[in-house]
């Protein structure tokens, strides 16, 4: 005779609980947290390098760098004067809240205005894992092709903003911005869509503006 139990539990409940604790502590600290998700090589680290260079005097910032192997990205950012701590996942395709909590403990950053979390390069897996962030951004480089939002709807539908990177390469790879805009407006109406190039600096002001606006909104809600 078999028995059936009603379980009704989020599969990632443990992660969600840990993420909620992180979110509460970021709220207390007034730190804006941005979870950056893209394929490998889309330009997450390059965008952070530019951000570190341009906003250094304005905000206290730091980055948690998620990678399967190597300290390279954290070193790139430290070379630009950004506090950076490398989380090596040792095989996992995404960061989870536990890895972030542990990384923050080890990193012992001072009080921060903005914490960037550069997730492991992967457009799918990181989407399911809440890290306690204020919002996720999905980055898509022009070289990856303009059909990607519909191919990976989960991240593009749930991101708080979409950042197109390597705009300077767009003309060389027949990247059609209107096609992408249509897909984003379908999956995520109203989501900010920024077109940037870390190489030429195009569009970076809009990115900084978005950060400033979200940080201000967060601080306002806290008050």
């Amino acid at each position, binding site marked *: 005779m*078999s*028995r059936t139990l009603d379980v009704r539990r989020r599969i990632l409940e443990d992660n969600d609980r840990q993420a909620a604790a992180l979110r509460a502590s970021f709220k207390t600290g007034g730190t804006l947290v941005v979870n950056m998700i893209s394929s490998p090589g889309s330009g997450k680290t390059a965008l952070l390098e530019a951000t570190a260079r341009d906003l250094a005097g304005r905000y206290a910032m730091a980055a948690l760098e998620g990678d399967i192997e190597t300290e390279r990205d954290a070193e790139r950012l430290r070379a630009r004067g950004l506090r950076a701590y490398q989380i090596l996942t040792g095989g996992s395709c995404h960061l989870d809240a536990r890895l972030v909590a542990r990384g923050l403990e080890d990193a012992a950053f001072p009080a921060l205005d903005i914490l960037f979390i550069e997730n492991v390069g992967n457009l799918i*897996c990181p989407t399911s894992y809440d890290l306690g962030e204020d919002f996720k951004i999905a980055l898509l480089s022009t070289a990856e092709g303009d059909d990607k939002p519909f191919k990976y709807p989960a991240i593009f539908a749930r991101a708080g903003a979409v950042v197109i990177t390597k705009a300077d390469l767009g003309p060389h790879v027949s990247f059609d911005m209107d096609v992408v805009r249509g897909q984003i407006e379908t999956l995520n109406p*109203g989501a900010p869509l920024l077109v940037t190039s870390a190489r030429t600096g195009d569009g970076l002001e809009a990115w900084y503006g978005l950060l400033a606006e979200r940080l201000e909104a967060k601080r306002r809600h806290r008050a």
Partner: protein
Amino acid sequence: MDEASKRTPCPSRALSPIARSEATAGVRGEIDFQLWRPKCYAHLDGGFARDDGGGERIVHELGIATEIYESCRTAVDRSGSGRLQSVKIAVGELSAVEPECLRFAWEALVAGGPDAGCALEVEWRPARQFCPQCGQVKPRPETRWLRLCPDCWQPLRIDGGDELDVLEVSFEPREHGPEETS
């Protein structure tokens, strides 16, 4: 880094080096449990699902399968324990989980252990496109998206599709005789 120190047993059974599953449509491959680690699941080049190039997918779904297994095992152990027979879960279209990869990972995970053969039943939950203007969900073709509301041409909001839940677990309670432990 010392590989051996990172290994911990697969939660479903004692280590067996390779689990192979070809029964699930669309996904074939192997999982190397020698490289198993809880939650973080092994090296991508360690050869999960070598033959379809989808190794990274399997790594992810194997992690999800483990979470499912552990919560079902815990729930059943709290109710007197016994062998798992079937598990029902809900997977949303926007949950970033591929049901075929998940079934494959599940099969490999339970194979050869005390709960071998436990079925994983997946309820697929498509995302819905809702028109705030009309106040209605607009039917959409499977896997395609409506650009705007077909009735009022306003943008549509996407609701649901984020589900990733264990719904229920069926098991054979242990009380049925001592011989079943052999």
